[in-house]
């Protein structure tokens, strides 16, 4: 799968400045990628362009081998009238069902699965939401702060598991967290303000996987590179 | 006052603010010419039964006696007696049954004069469609009634006298317009012989329909009709006003009903009652004269004590009032016979 953006410029109606100015980027291949940048720089805007939610921009986005891009964010909620498991069963396509129990276990949701969504803690809500997205068909899943309320250890566990369970899918992980992004992602797109050119800089992350041995030195270097690029 | 007055403009503005209301006050006083103002609430809308009231006002009888009288029309929502007690009106017109019912409940009412010497209330019906040979024939009929009006009291007395219960007749609530009777929805329609009877009768004649009147009077239910009333307090605290009012009013009525003044009376009435055509009014006046004056010699407005006692007796026996009312205490001295 490949997604390439060329000469993208965009300004919100009634806004004073441009969000993107002649921006280029390229996401290719399966795995965990990241979109990194300071608050308000336009990460969510770019994500919306990738899903097609925003169309009125200059430039083009070329797709190759991409049938469906899904976007999820941490404020999403499940409908309140059924419990979480009932909802999962309703929205899981036949292909995804086998993975459902595995995901539930990995994400630590066995106890909370029979509850209604509003009774879960924020962290549990984040996880429940992510599970249902993972059960869908997609080539690229954009996760916009989707695990923001989950503790660090569980987050790590989840990311590693997702990479292992879905080796042929692509993910775009939007986050502020330098360490996390440097450690787990393969390609890190650093988005900068429109005053800087190029607006997107691609940095190589460590792409840490389950069972692999961590390399603190390389990790530190990757982190510095990202921070320097921002 | 602190410091200097300021600009000349400020001073003249202050003077203007003081002078202005004084001028208005003087102007208003001048307009009133020192007339005492009172409210007079009639029993129903302006019609021929109120010609004397309107005549007295329009021809200046009240003004000549130092009064400015607001002659206000009545209606189904209005009750002159309640307005008197609450002080919204100083004089009013009510029928005997209304007065007796109020007096039985302790209302401090006094009757000053009696307008109708013969009760004008009848029910009109179509003899071709409605069989009415005996009073019992009222059973099963649709009878129009003005709830709260004297026709309600008279009808109840009539029904009670002939042993007819309310569920044996169908009562239809009457307000202002006669359409339900014209359309045949109601068999018996209440009216005053001198007023609506002329209007409705003429319309039925034009349509080629026969009509007849059911008279409660003829069936033994004799009630006193419209009378002029005031409160005991008025009589005690403002006797001069009452005297002047009554004198002017009775004189006005007498002159209004005088055939010599018919044209003027018609003019006054038409100015207030826009609904009735002149031709009809001219037919209504003679009937009104007949019902309000027993003989040319007698004074207008005399109170017929015997008739009042009879009304009280009927109402008491038919349980329309909870207990006896001492009629004599109600009727103002000096105007009774």
């Amino acid at each position: 799968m490949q997604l390439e953006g060329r000469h993208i410029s965009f300004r919100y109606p009634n806004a004073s400045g441009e969000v993107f100015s002649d921006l280029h980027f390229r996401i290719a291949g399966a795995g965990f990628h990241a979109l990194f940048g300071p608050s308000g720089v336009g990460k969510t805007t770019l994500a919306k362009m990738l899903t097609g939610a925003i169309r009125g921009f200059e430039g083009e986005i070329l797709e190759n081998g991409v049938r469906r891009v899904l976007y999820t964010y941490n404020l999403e909620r499940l409908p309140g009238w059924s419990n979480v498991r009932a909802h999962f069963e309703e929205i899981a396509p036949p292909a995804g069902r086998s993975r459902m129990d595995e995901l539930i276990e990995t994400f630590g949701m066995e106890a909370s699965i029979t509850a209604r969504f509003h009774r879960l803690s924020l962290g549990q809500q984040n996880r429940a939401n992510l599970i249902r997205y993972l059960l869908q068909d997609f080539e690229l899943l954009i996760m916009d702060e989707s695990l923001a309320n989950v503790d660090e250890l569980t987050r790590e566990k989840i990311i590693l598991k997702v990479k292992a369970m879905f080796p042929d899918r692509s993910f775009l992980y939007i986050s502020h967290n330098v360490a996390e992004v440097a450690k787990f992602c393969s390609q890190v797109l650093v988005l900068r303000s429109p005053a800087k050119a190029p607006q997107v800089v691609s940095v190589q992350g460590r792409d840490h996987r389950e069972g692999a041995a961590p390399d603190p030195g390389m990790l530190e270097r990757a982190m510095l590179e990202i921070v320097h690029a921002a | 006052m602190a410091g200097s007055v300021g600009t000349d403009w400020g001073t003249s503005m202050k003077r203007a603010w003081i002078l202005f209301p004084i001028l208005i006050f003087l102007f208003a006083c001048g307009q009133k010419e020192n007339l005492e103002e009172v409210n007079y609430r009639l029993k129903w809308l302006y019609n021929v039964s109120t010609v004397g009231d309107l005549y007295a006002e329009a021809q200046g009888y009240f003004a000549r006696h130092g009064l400015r009288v607001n002659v206000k029309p009545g209606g189904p929502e209005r009750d002159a007696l309640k307005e008197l007690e609450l002080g919204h009106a100083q004089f009013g017109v009510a029928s005997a049954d209304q007065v007796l019912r109020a007096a039985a409940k302790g209302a401090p009412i006094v009757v000053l004069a009696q307008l109708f010497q013969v009760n004008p209330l009848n029910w009109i019906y179509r003899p071709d469609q409605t069989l009415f040979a005996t009073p019992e024939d009222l059973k099963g009929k649709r009878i129009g009634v003005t709830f709260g009006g004297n026709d309600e009291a008279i009808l109840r007395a009539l029904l009670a006298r002939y042993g007819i219960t309310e569920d044996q007749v169908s009562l239809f609530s009457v307000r202002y317009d006669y359409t339900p009777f014209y359309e045949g929805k109601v068999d018996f329609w209440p009216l005053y012989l001198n007023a609506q009877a002329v209007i409705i009768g003429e319309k039925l004649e034009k349509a080629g329909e026969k009509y007849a009147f059911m008279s409660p009077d003829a069936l033994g239910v004799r009630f006193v009709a419209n009378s002029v009333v005031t409160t005991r307090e008025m009589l005690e605290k403002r006797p001069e006003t009452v005297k002047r009012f009554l004198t002017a009013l009775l004189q006005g009525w007498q002159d209004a009903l005088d055939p010599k003044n018919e044209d003027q009376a018609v003019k006054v009435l038409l100015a207030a009652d826009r609904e009735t055509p002149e031709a009809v009014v001219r037919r209504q006046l003679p009937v009104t004269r007949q019902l309000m004056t027993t003989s040319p010699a007698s004074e207008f407005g005399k109170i017929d004590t015997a008739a009042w006692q009879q009304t009280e007796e009927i109402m008491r026996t038919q349980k329309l009032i909870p207990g006896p009312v001492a009629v004599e205490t109600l009727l103002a001295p000096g105007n009774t016979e």
Partner: protein
Amino acid sequence: MLHRRIYQFFIIYFLGVGLLLALKYGLSLSDYVIPSPGEIWRTGRTYAGPYLLAVLNTLAVAVLGHIVSICLATMVAILGRLTAWVGSFIRTAAFNIQAYPIVAVAPIIFILLGDGLASRLLIAAMICYFPLLLSFIGVFSEPVREIEHFFESTGRMTWRLQVKIRAFENIQKLTTVIVGSATMAMVGTIVAEFIAATAGIGYSIRIALYQSDLAKILVALFLIGIGTSLYLVSLEWIGNALQARLKRT
């Protein structure tokens, strides 16, 4: 033991009657103008039966009209979701029409449709319709992005699901406006009856007014208050039961 609404009504009613009696004795008004407590009681005993029937009659019409109104408002509000244009048109029309006093149109309706049930039902429905409609349109036109986004992006959204989501999220608001409009339906029906009908408690009150019988009016008001309170209590109970059932884990 008695519902709080009934208590509230009793307090207000007896305060009102107390005020009237205070006025009576303070201004020394006769029993003709303001009846004595004894007379009010006696009138109550005589007329409680027929007036109760009249209140039930009116209540039935009001409830039926209210239900018709709710169904109609639901349908129109769901249709109003379709396009922004339709939605805003309906909203503007509703805003403008609701300012018009429906009861002023009541006599015309009675002339056209007669004195019967149809007229009273129509007026009851019309009176509570517009507030219901505006509230429902507001609820059904406003997307609940956090929930709807998933279904939209995975192609699972249907109009039924969308309505269900929006209704569920706003159940509190919907219940409130339904309970509020219930009172309007009752009041409106009574006023319409007062103006032009020949049945119901509004008609009874008009007759009592013509007869200047304040005792009868007080009895009628008492029964109306009880009837309306009971209706509102039932509605709130239904609303709570619904919410509890939906929230049960």
